[in-house]
């Protein structure tokens, strides 16, 4: 670890990091807070109005999504959250080689007694550190929202049977609305499997963008290509879910391995589910990659692409600035 190089990498990425972190924190807090504004009964009515066919766009059943945990957990599947974490990973990854070459600063940098591999891996490490920190920012914002938000619950009059602990509802009693802290119904530590999945997706995009960058001489072009691939993957995911004849697209999109709600739901029913290689998706009744397989596949693909990128950068001719 070269401290001067580390300081430079941190300095160059600070503005983007602060921007992404600020937006993620604000959005995640707001998204969970909004869940508290809409009580479950009304949300269920909205969900019931949706055609049953639409359930195929969701990896978890609507019954679970109606719950407070389900509705807060879907924050991790919001395009804004996925895009901001991916944007950080893609932009910083694309800057590793192409950015320095494009700005013309690689020449002076490589004249120092620091290997190309170290320059590559150190910037990649800062990228991964940023991905992990952004995921923690999302979790912190969601935790804060869970801690501070109150939800409306309908309470029916009842009376306690002494010594038994049983409550008997009063048949003709008037129900009343009460405020309950969200933390009583949502445990924020339950989001962890989804956040791990989000971090693994970030690692994949960091590796992919770094590999694209190692082949290029312009950061903007590497960024453009990486963003293009991101949207292509997103289109494949939508296509595979929307049309049965295009289901095969699901095999070639990385987003098939990104199922944060599914991982959270599975871990709620079985705490050991995060270590499963495969699991059954109750909506599609298909066997899908379990949290362990999905996360390891994302990490392995990201690390492999980064390694190919580092090798390519170490061996390629470097064009002069201009």
């Amino acid at each position, binding site marked *: 670890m*070269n*401290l*001067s*190089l580390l*300081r*430079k990498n941190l*300095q*160059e990425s600070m503005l983007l990091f602060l921007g992404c972190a600020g937006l993620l924190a604000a959005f995640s807090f707001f998204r969970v807070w909004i869940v508290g504004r809409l009580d479950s009964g009304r949300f269920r009515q909205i969900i019931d109005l949706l055609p049953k066919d639409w359930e195929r766009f969701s990896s978890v059943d609507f019954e679970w999504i109606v719950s407070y945990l389900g509705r807060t957990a879907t924050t991790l599947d919001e395009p804004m959250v996925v895009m901001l974490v991916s944007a950080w990973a893609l932009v910083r990854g694309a800057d590793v080689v192409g950015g320095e070459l494009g*700005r*013309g*600063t690689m*020449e*002076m940098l*490589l*004249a*120092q*007694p*620091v*290997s190309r591999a170290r320059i590559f891996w150190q910037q990649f490490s800062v990228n991964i550190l940023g991905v992990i920190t952004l995921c923690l920012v999302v979790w912190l914002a969601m935790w804060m929202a869970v801690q501070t938000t109150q939800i409306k619950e309908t309470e029916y009059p009842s009376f306690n049977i002494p010594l038994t602990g049983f409550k008997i509802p009063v048949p003709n009693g008037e129900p009343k609305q009460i405020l309950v802290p969200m933390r009583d119904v949502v445990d924020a530590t339950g989001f962890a499997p989804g956040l791990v999945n989000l971090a693994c997706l970030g690692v994949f995009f960091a590796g992919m963008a770094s590999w694209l960058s190692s082949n290029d001489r312009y950061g903007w072009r590497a960024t453009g290509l990486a963003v293009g691939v991101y949207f292509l993957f997103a289109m494949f995911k939508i296509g595979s879910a929307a049309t049965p004849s295009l289901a095969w697209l699901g095999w070639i999109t990385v987003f098939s391995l990104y199922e944060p709600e599914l991982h959270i739901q599975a871990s709620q029913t079985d705490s050991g589910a995060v270590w499963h290689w495969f699991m059954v998706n109750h909506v599609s009744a298909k066997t899908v990659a379990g949290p362990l397989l999905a996360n390891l596949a994302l990490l392995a693909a990201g690390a492999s692409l980064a390694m190919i990128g580092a090798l390519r950068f170490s*061996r390629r*001719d*470097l064009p*002069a*600035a*201009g």
Partner: protein
Amino acid sequence: MIESLVSVHQLSKQFRQHWALAGCSLEIRRGEVFGLLGPNGAGKTTLLRLLMGYLKPTTGNATVSELDCYRDRVAIHRQVAYLPGEVRLFRSMNGRQVLKFFSGIRPDGDFQAALRMARRLDLDLSRWVAFMSTGMRQKLALAAVLSLPAPLTILDEPTANLDPTVRTQLLQIIDEIRRDGRTVVFSSHVLSEVEEVCDRVVILREGKLVHEQSMGDLRKMYRIRARIEGGDLTELLPLVDSARHDPLTGRLTIEVAGDIHPVLRWLAQNPVEEIEVAPAGLRSVYEKFHSVPVEQVV
């Protein structure tokens, strides 16, 4: 025998169909200032980038202190201070931060020495690189490079964009590096600068090394211009390196290396009307190789 610091053997670099450098061989001795001359596209920068290990040679090899320039590039960079031809620095830093970065990233870096060099080059270090002029950025990069105690300093067109005062200052610093026993490789288009600081130069043309010139020998060369009516030129030819005579105007141009007296004696014995004796200078050597097609000089 003087030990070589840099050895280049049959070094070539091909980009697609174009040979940027073709079969270049040379030796650079410890403690000398070595010049690279040639027009744009002659292969000077390609040669320097091959020495820095940025490019993989197509054929041949180059060594610095017997370390291979491509395979052992990190070890070589510990011994080299390099200024690229096109200086670009980190725009998000100010001058002081740039010097701190370059002195921090190297084991031999010295921030105080870099600050002293910046003061010598009259540089405002509080300004952000993004708001510096091209000349200021060049001075900043020079301060970072010249403050290093590296055994080999490679400067690719270092005087480009510099004002005359800083240019003179830079040539003085190069002279100080030489007196310190360190080696400088200096690439430039400006013949007068090369003539002033270099001990030896090579001239490149279309990727080929076409001439090597010791500046010591060059300083013993003279160019004599005269107008002569008649006279037996066959007596002159054995005394000179080259002679051109225009019978219509009577103009005679002679180049002599070494002892000039026999030629002056011959001129005194002949009907000379006008005479001008001057050191030959690098320009006359340079023009020999850059005013005729490449086939005639290789």
